[in-house]
């Protein structure tokens, strides 16, 4: 019987990465002095599960590495050791190192052995340093042998005959023991029968081991924790004379043994190393309440459906009202179900935010700055794909704020600001969008410098008149950097253009506000979900287009006398006190058969994007509906002014207008 272990690897890695996050958060909390025992315990538990899992799956290097971390954490937990700031730094680095090892293992990459070694030694150094002396006084001395490291241990390890049938592997245990200290020993092969009587699934060996080094009994017990029922284990300290046996000595239970005639093929354990590519599919954790909601809703749907089919069996016009009622219910349930299913894809943005405390802490230490990170709205939910793609842009922006935004402490004091700078991360809903704001109270962006830089780079004319927003937009040009010197944190001008590109590809936008000397706000606006939107369908000629409802302000039937021309070409429409530029879809998309030519023949849909209002001129309004967004790019290409396509009720395709890009096209 062999189980394909690969299927569990994915789960193991996912859980381990989560465990690493837990450890990281915990360590950061310890650092800021908010630690309590529970915090240390949760770090310890995370390390322990990673060790256990990696040992089981045969990732020996990970298991060894985690083991030493665990040992250190164990001492901290027991109060024998205080965790210093440096200690936490080393542990944090070790978490990174572990993450690197795990990524390498799961994706089949190279493990940076030097890195592992450095961290391993650093951990070992802490363990070797005798820090316990200071804390000995306040911890009550427990005279239990299991807590006191002895100079060494003598271990007699006699696995039962059926040891391997439970999936245990003595080699793993020996390997783990050798990770604790210097392991010497002898194997007792006297019970091994003649070859023709040997059953390869039975266990005939036992070991007499000597483990040298400062190892606690508890650590050894840990190693044997899984196998104590299937083996006899005697552990005695090397220096003590009395033979104190821990596990009850049992006589081997198997007496009758049927010799097997045929030799069964040995279970190939080591041969299971496969060079399979890691499974690319990612999974998502869904709260049980969301699933319950779904099940409820499906239940309702089924009830409605059976009601309708009952109605259909014996239908006459007198029951029309009931039918309509049923259809309305069906409609409502379907919509609710759809919303719930979409909810499954929604994950809180804290998944992305959680990495920032660490990043800001490390960066500010590196740059000798004092920075406090404040986060709000971590529970704001976003589509998983959006969350994944927004991570990198946010990292860039936060880095920028740390590096360029916040000044050095002495500069801040000189400017009359508190020594510690503040960076705020804010996530909240606004309309159909999620807004993420990165605010710093640093020195702000100097518009003049950017303007000059823009002229230097030939992006703008020397005498050009630009609005603030246009000047800030220069920042997002490739290769644009105003940092006087390039640091390894930022300043190479790579990044900001990528930030903008990523955000645009998600259908979002980024705005910059800054006051010199007071700080900067980067505000990212993202659609809630990428899969579905509420749309208004409009017709231009033979074609139907969908305008996202979120960008529509209102629709008006234009009056001729409100039309004004700018220089004979640009059309504007006076709506109340505002002059709206008119965008004719017919002209932008070269639609030859558009019906409406004169303004009063068609309709004007007033849209808003990037803070500007425009009138989109179409032939007719059709109706509102929810549409599922389909990609045009997957088989074709990206079309300017179109964000995607959708399939209408009759099976035909309609294109979804991308209002911000339409506005840019008409510029």
């Amino acid at each position, binding site marked *: 019987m062999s189980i394909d272990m690969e299927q569990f690897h994915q789960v193991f890695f996912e859980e381990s990465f989560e465990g690493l996050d837990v450890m990281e958060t915990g360590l950061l909390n310890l650092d800021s002095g908010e630690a309590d025992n529970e915090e240390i315990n949760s770090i310890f538990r995370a390390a322990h599960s990673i060790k256990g899992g990696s040992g089981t799956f045969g990732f020996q290097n990970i298991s060894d590495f985690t083991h030493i971390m665990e040992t250190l954490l164990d001492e901290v937990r027991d109060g024998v050791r205080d965790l210093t700031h440096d200690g936490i730094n080393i542990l944090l680095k070790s978490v990174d190192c572990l993450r690197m090892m795990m990524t390498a293992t799961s994706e089949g990459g190279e493990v940076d052995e030097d890195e592992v070694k450095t961290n391993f030694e650093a951990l070992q150094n802490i363990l070797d340093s005798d820090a316990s002396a200071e804390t000995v006084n306040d911890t009550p001395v427990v005279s239990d042998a299991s807590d006191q490291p002895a100079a060494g241990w003598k271990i007699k390890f006699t696995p039962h005959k059926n040891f391997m049938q439970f999936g245990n592997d003595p080699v793993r245990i020996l390997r783990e023991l050798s990770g604790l200290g210097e392991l010497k020993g002898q194997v007792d092969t006297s019970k091994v029968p003649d070859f023709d009587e040997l059953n390869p699934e039975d266990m005939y060996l036992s070991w007499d081991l000597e483990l040298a080094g400062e190892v606690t009994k508890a650590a050894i017990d840990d190693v044997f924790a899984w196998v104590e029922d299937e083996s006899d284990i005697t552990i005695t300290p090397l220096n003590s004379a009395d033979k104190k046996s821990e596990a009850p000595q049992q006589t081997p239970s198997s007496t009758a043994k049927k010799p097997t005639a045929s030799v069964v093929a040995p279970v190939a354990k080591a041969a299971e190393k496969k060079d399979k590519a890691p499974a690319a599919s990612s999974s998502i954790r869904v709260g049980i309440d969301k699933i319950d909601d779904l099940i409820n809703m499906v239940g309702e749907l089924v009830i409605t459906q059976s009601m309708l089919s009952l109605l259909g069996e014996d239908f006459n016009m007198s029951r029309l009202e009931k039918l309509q009622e049923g259809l309305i219910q069906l409609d409502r349930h379907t919509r609710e179900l759809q919303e719930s299913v979409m909810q499954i894809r929604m994950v809180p943005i804290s998944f992305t935010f959680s990495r920032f405390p660490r990043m800001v802490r490390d960066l500010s230490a590196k740059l000798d700055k004092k920075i406090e990170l404040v986060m709000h709205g971590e529970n704001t939910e976003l589509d998983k794909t959006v969350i994944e793609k927004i991570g990198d842009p946010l990292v860039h922006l936060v880095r920028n704020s740390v590096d360029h935004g916040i000044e050095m402490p002495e500069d801040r004091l000189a400017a009359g600001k508190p020594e510690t700078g503040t960076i705020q991360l804010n996530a909240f809903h606004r309309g159909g969008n999620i807004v993420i704001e990165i605010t710093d109270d640093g020195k702000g962006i100097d518009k003049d410098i950017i303007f000059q830089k823009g002229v230097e780079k030939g992006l703008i004319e020397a005498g050009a008149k630009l609005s603030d927003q246009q000047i800030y937009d220069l920042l997002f040009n490739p290769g644009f950097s105003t940092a006087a010197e390039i640091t390894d944190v930022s300043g190479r001008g790579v990044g900001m253009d990528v930030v903008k590109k990523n955000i645009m590809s998600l259908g979002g936008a980024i705005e910059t506000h800054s006051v010199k000397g007071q700080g900067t706000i980067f505000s990212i606006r993202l659609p809630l979900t990428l899969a579905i939107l509420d749309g208004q369908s409009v017709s231009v000629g033979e074609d139907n287009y969908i305008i996202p409802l979120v960008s529509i302000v209102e629709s008006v039937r234009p009056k001729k006398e409100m039309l004004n021309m700018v220089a004979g070409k640009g059309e504007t429409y006076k709506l109340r006190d505002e002059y709206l530029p008119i965008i004719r879809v017919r002209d932008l*998309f*070269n639609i030859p058969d558009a019906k409406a030519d004169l303004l009063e023949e068609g309709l004007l849909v007033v849209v808003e994007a990037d803070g500007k209002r425009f009138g989109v001129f179409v032939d007719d309004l059709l109706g509102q509906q929810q549409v599922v967004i*389909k990609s045009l790019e*997957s088989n*074709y*290409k990206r*079309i300017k002014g179109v964000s995607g*396509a959708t399939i209408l009720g009759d099976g*035909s395709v309609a294109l979804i207008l991308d209002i911000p890009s339409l506005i840019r096209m008409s510029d």
Partner: protein
Amino acid sequence: MTVETHSNGTDELLDVDADLGDEYLTFSLAHEEYGVDILRVQEIRGWEAVTRVPNSPDYVKGVLNLRGAIVPVIDLRVRFNLPLEEYTSLTVVIVLAVKDKDDGRERTISVVVDEISDVVKAKLSDIQTTPKFGSALDTEYISGLADAGGKMLMLLDIDTMLRVSEMKQM
């Protein structure tokens, strides 16, 4: 409109080890015969109205809904600069799997042709290389010439012909 295949049945039965060649779906365009590797053909549908896509090359008629996927429709007459003709009841759309040479992705693209002719087997040895016509005619997307019942068959290299990067050049 059946076209004779190049070999008769008995020959094939006797000569099992022979180079049987690939099968090609042949279709006609302005009385010329073209063939595409049949393994690339996903489906053949009748012509129906498509949704026009703005700012696309003239040979892209629009997009259609293929069971939920949005697939571009390319008129091969326009693509090959052949005289245009009204679409009739015989006009068909061939849905093809195309491998994008630029990003290695597989795409689904459909082409409009006059009518489907036949399925033809062409041995590798029977396929001639495409002659060069100088700058007057671009033959890059014709992978070879074969004979189909006395009529010349142009075998299309659809990966080259339907390059998306080309469609992107506007």
